[in-house]
């Protein structure tokens, strides 16, 4: 039974908007990622007018870990997930007093910047120098990235975050591209999917992260031969069961309609997937009362699956949803806004120094 499109939109709107108001305590260290999913979702539904942009922009900037006067904490800069560490509220670009336990988190820097772009901010208060230094400090010898300078697990998710950060700030000095590329190549498994790292099992999420990273670097066809790309295409297209799953033998999950669907789009064969079955699965995970999507039918919806469900539907051209830019994981509209920012910076660069990297 086909769902009416208006119904999808409004229900999801309600779900996402209410999430913004009730950011969950349990996830407070990654509050910024939750905000990102909500904002990006609203943007995909063309409903950003429902939020108080200015206030949210201020809040995001308050999460920026800025360099102090003598720049001794430069390699710890970026964005933090929330105010949980207890640093004083400071949405301005002025030099900070460094806090012993304060540092950026790569996924928060990524989602912070992406949220600012989606909200139409011009990134002028972003400390580019800090972000780049913070990013460089996180890259390991093998090309992958930690999330935080104290160390953490390292895998393809953070490689993708790093690539997005560099792409958005139009500055690739934040990473050693060749090392990252080598990490990606080594993560290809025997079945031609890509794992989180070398010798690890192929996974729809890490495959997306790897391919999207290469697309953002504009190196896809250089790094993988046509034969290899064909094998990756084959692995990905076999992930569709009704919706998509992330690995063979696993149940389908709404978010893979984007992770795998988006990868197939970047590899130019999304049109070979079965749209109807994909659509029906995503819609079957919709909550009839509050809206939003869950990973499975009859499960609790959450903002991550709501957002990726919307993106999955966008890929198949669902009316009422904006087009998504799969590599950068935001609406095409937001992506084009970012392009216009880059144009502006290039123009200004020819006259002055890059305003993004100025500290004051």
């Amino acid at each position, binding site marked *: 039974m086909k769902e009416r499109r208006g119904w999808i939109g409004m229900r999801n709107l309600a779900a996402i908007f209410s999430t913004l108001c009730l950011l969950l*305590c*349990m996830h407070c*260290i*990654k509050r910024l990622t939750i905000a990102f999913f909500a904002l990006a979702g609203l943007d995909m539904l063309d409903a950003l007018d429902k939020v108080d942009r200015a206030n949210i922009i201020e809040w995001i900037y308050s999460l920026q870990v800025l360099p102090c006067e003598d720049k001794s904490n430069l390699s710890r800069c970026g964005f933090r997930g929330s105010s*949980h*560490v*207890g640093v004083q509220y400071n949405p301005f670009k002025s030099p900070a007093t460094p806090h012993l*336990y304060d540092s950026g988190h790569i996924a928060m820097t990524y989602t912070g910047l992406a949220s600012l772009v989606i909200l139409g901010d011009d990134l002028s208060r972003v400390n580019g120098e800090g972000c780049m230094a913070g990013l460089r400090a996180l890259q390991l010898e093998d090309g992958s990235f930690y*999330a*935080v300078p*104290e160390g*953490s*697990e390292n895998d393809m998710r953070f490689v993708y975050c790093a690539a997005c950060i560099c792409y958005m700030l139009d500055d690739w000095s934040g990473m050693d591209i060749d090392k990252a590329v080598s990490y990606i190549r080594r993560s290809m*498994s*025997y*079945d031609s999917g890509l*794992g*989180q*790292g070398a*010798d*690890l*099992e*192929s*996974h729809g999420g890490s495959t997306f992260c790897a391919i999207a990273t290469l697309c953002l670097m504009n190196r896809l*066809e*250089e790094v993988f*031969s*046509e*034969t*290899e790309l*064909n094998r990756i295409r084959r692995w990905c*297209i*076999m992930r*569709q069961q009704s919706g998509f799953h992330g*690995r*063979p*033998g*696993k149940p389908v*999950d709404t978010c893979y309609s984007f992770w795998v669907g988006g990868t197939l789009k970047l590899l130019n*064969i999304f*049109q*070979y997937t*079965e749209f109807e*079955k994909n659509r029906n699965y995503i819609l079957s995970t919709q909550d009839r009362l509050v809206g939003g999507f*869950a*990973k*499975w039918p*009859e*499960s*609790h919806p*959450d903002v*991550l*699956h709501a957002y990726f469900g919307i993106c999955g539907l966008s890929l198949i051209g669902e009316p009422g949803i904006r087009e998504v830019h799969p590599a950068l994981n935001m609406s095409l509209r937001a992506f084009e806004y970012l392009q216009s920012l880059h144009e502006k910076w290039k123009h200004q660069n020819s006259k002055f120094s890059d305003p993004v990297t100025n500290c004051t």
Partner: protein
Amino acid sequence: MHGRIKVKSTEEQKEQKAKERAKKLQFYQATTAAISEKRKDHQFDQEVLELTGQILSVNPDYATYWNLRRQIFLHFEHEKEPEEVKSIHQKELFFLETCLRVNPKSYGTWHHRCWVMDHMQEPDWKRELELCNKFLEYDERNFHCWDYRRFVVQRSAVPVEEELAYTSRLISTNFSNYSSWHYRSTLLPIVHPDHKRQGRISEKILLKEYELVQNAFFTDPNDQSAWFYYRWLLGRADSLLKINCLYVNRDQRRILVCFSRPVNVLSKSSKLILFVDQKLILPEWRPVAGQKTYSCVWLCDLPECTLDNGSLHQDIKVVWDGDDDLQKECTIYKGKRESWCRDSATAEELFRCQMSVEKSTQLQSELESCKQLQELEPDNKWCLLTVILLMRALDPLGYENETLQYFKALKVADAMRTRYYNDLCSKFVIENCILKMEYAEVRVIDMSHKNLTRLCYLDQMVLVTHMNLSGNQLTCLPPSFLTMQCLEVLNADDNSIENVSGLSNLPQLEEVTLRNNCIQTPADLQPLASCLKLSFLDLKGNPVCNLPNIHSELTLLLPQVKEIILQ
């Protein structure tokens, strides 16, 4: 966000739940506040361990607190006696185990366990391996656990052969074990390497492995893991970069170089050097498809008089001075318009490997077994795919018709991926067309009436002069068509072509028929304007022919074409 299923509850239960949640929240906030205080005062003690422990056992993703615990342990390592530190580490391992039982997929927990093990004076790696075994019994697909296992194996120098034996044990108790096959694929090339092909397995072991996998998928034909593993075993090593064609045309004063994969000839780190009669020439290379940085096919124009017709012959050589040292030579004789040197796809094993008699015999018998299995399991797509795979590996031309039959069955068994299979079939058909062309040693390729839905391997057709694509399901002649630099005659009748963007700058193209296609407007034919030798164009049966004044418009657009047929 871990897929909790909804459960109905009564009003009373809901109220009770609300009270519990409120209590939990209060406790959570009080505890995190207390931790903040102590941290601010730099108090690294047992109490902070207690407090962070309480939070982490409920929320193991709180990375900051794992960090704090590590800080405390480092502090203890300085302040306390080794015996005490040892017991603290042991307690931590125990605590981590309880966290893992609650959430075996928390990155933070596993990462912290690695750290603790690395900081112990006498780590018990055997016990850790046992822990992995236990957790893999609960969930063999838990990649965090597999990752941790690899860490343990590496740290304690467990011999690879032992791990290989572990996978054998897992597989024999439960064939449907995707992660085990995966792990095995990483170990086999280390334990039994093929010394000629990097990353592949020695043939003797390979043949034994085929048997093992066959047993698996005959036991349970519906499990994907064995099929994927079998496919990997049948696969070939990736080819190295090569120059597979060098072409010289005297009339056009042009040289064409074709690589086995896209390269950037204009990058700083590599150069494509040209010698004509041992004289160094540094031409301006350009990719065959204008704007691309990376291309398989590169062209250059030679200065006048380089290829004069005076001497009996001239030697042309290109040298690729990149990471690999490659070169190709050919000789052009007096009076000849053109010359070339090309590696055949057959010789280069582009589409399939040469096989030893043993391997060939074994695979032949496996093909027979798979066919029998397929009769018992007609809906099984993996079986069908494997039959097709084996036929391609053994004898692509000999099994051509049978392969097409199996593709028909595949599209019925797995209708969802019909379009993908059409493309895959097109690819195999084109491979066969190329093999046939090479066998006949001609420059004419016939790909007509083969249900092609897309074109590929066009970089293998650089020397082709005549191409027949009629009677297929193509919708466009894409930019990859630009590699057809020697093409003189093209028949693309009876397709659904709307777009001919690849038919541009083809210097030898003289005749094109595009009857019964979907060309809509004169603008669609714009690319042809750059094909300067084009003299014949047949567009009968296209919507564009019905437009008013079409003949004069086309004459303006394509002034070089002497004959344009519209009906």
